[in-house]
């Protein structure tokens, strides 16, 4: 029911809150190992779109398929275990444990109570944590309690947690909001690096950042897809200029 080259197919999804259609028969297809940026004005449905993919919000109409699974059949944590990771807008990490422990609890080992109770860090997992810590550039801070990290470092840690969880699809909400220029640049490198072998869906307002990613852009407006294409073409699109980019 889903084409092999695609990882996610959203078909005519509608979600309404008290009559307001946050998503209005939205359809979107995303290929494997592709990075896509989603832009759109406030209220276009960017966050709701992530909420329905991760099962946080139930859909009224339509279907979402992820690797041949109909996502309406699964709860939030089951969807995660199917391979969808979500990075929230604000850094959402466990503040009171160390960077290392944050990554350990994100490892894609069994998430059942009793296997966690008897879990011992083995060599394979140990090396994985070490590898991810180096990808997110936090080697020197691995024993630091996470609340002492800077804003940017917290964002990277959360991305690291998604990586170690081995999600095939990452949903990333405004990763560079509030970051310094250097941090933004590092984040862009990090995202390009990780999108090599997984699908990444980034929501962001920062146009320069999206341009630096050099990826396909999807424009949302009033709950459906307005257009999609390269940044260059999007910038010229009259409709997009009208609703979002401004003249």
């Amino acid at each position, binding site marked *: 029911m889903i084409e092999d080259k695609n990882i996610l197919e959203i078909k005519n999804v509608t979600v309404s809150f008290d009559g307001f259609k946050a998503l209005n028969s939205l359809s979107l297809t995303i290929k494997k190992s592709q990075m896509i940026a989603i832009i759109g004005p406030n209220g276009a449905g960017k966050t709701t779109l992530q909420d329905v993919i*991760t099962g946080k919000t139930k859909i009224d109409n339509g279907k979402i398929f992820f690797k041949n699974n109909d996502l309406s059949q699964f*709860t*939030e*944590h089951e969807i*995660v*275990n199917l391979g969808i*990771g*979500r990075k*929230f807008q604000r850094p*959402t*990490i*466990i*503040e*009171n*444990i*160390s960077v*290392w*422990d944050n990554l*350990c*609890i*994100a490892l*894609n080992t069994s*998430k059942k*109570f009793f296997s*966690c*109770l*008897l*879990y*011992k*860090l083995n060599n394979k997992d140990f090396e994985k944590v070490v590898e991810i810590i180096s990808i997110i550039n936090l080697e020197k801070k691995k*024993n630091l*309690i996470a609340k002492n990290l800077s804003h940017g470092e917290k964002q990277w840690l959360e991305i690291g*947690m998604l990586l170690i*969880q081995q999600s095939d699809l990452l949903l990333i909400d405004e990763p560079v909001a509030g970051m310094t220029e250097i941090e933004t640049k590092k984040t862009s490198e990090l995202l390009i690096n990780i999108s090599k072998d997984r699908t990444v869906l980034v929501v962001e307002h920062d146009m320069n950042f999206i341009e630096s990613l050099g990826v396909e852009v999807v424009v949302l407006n009033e709950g459906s897809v307005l257009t999609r294409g390269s940044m260059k073409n999007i910038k010229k699109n009259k409709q997009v200029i009208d609703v979002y980019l401004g003249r």
Partner: protein
Amino acid sequence: MNKRMVEKNSSLFTNINFLLGDSIGRYLIYLLAISIFILPILHVYIAEDSLFHVSSYTISLLGKYLCFALLALSLDLVWGYTGILSLGHGAFFGLGGYMMGMHLMREIGDRGVYGNPLLPDFMVFLNWEELPWFWYGFDSFLFSCLMVILIPGLLAFIFSALAFGSRVTGVYFSIITQALVFTLMLAFFQNDFGFGGNNGLTDFKDILGKDISSKETRAALYICSATMLILSYLTCRFIVSSKIGNILIGIRDRETRMRFLGYNTTVFKIIIFTFSAVLAGIAGALYVPQVGIINPGEFSPIKSIEIVVWVALGGRGFLYGAIIGAIVVNVLKSYLTIISPEIWIIFLGLVFILVTIYLPNGLTDLKRIIKKNIYDRR
């Protein structure tokens, strides 16, 4: 949470000995273990006029403190680590106590005031003809012990499954735990409910065929309480120093993140809450034979809130803090209520406020402050 504590925890994944890095807890365990050997001997074998004699009043009092410590420990696991503030843990403590009380009532046999071999006194007084069905089986000690675990555990399981399953959290959960304990109090106050109403269950004679007020029994009950506290502490410490510990902290601090890491947080919360309730029930069951009575007063909402105060004073999220808090507060209570019962509640309130302001981690902060002062002087 204390930074040092957490840093030590991080090495515990690879650590076989989960007690390393928990020095205060370890000393506490040693102290309890030593008391198991010394106190009963001082109580049973030393002459009563000797300076070293431990009176039966004292040993029962200490045993009672240990039951409270176990109760506080159980609350710290759900509140300190998992962030679930239960204002109704007295419900499980009381139920455990009632289960043991029912057995002790049945053991009285025909030695009651009315001499009825089958019915406890209060049933004869109410003109009941036969034993209610839910009293069956309680003549067996083993069955009663099973019920001590099963009934509080089952109630906690159903209650928490309903609450956490429908995502009731935070202050709303705390309020319904108060409602739970209040409901139980009202029910147990009813004479028709079948648990002795207002007066509760009392006038116990024997436990396992031994006189309940004899020196040997008192000593044995103290040994049981201390042993149970040690075992429970070790179990709780094992849980929080496994991967579960960090997961529970994660649920406390960022439940959505944990859910989006693939954890079914509802299941974790139900398991921890139920386990905690079982510990509270065991504490209640050990408490009843030592104080000789169980009545619906144990279900009064204020008693459950008092447990929270013990844990807050001791410092939550450390396990040993709860034990220290429960013991310190109850020792103070014993002395102050002798001097003047009225000032006790005011004193408790005042201490609670002061601790919240100046020692956010309770008495465990004292260690940090003392250390800091020593370093500053150098």
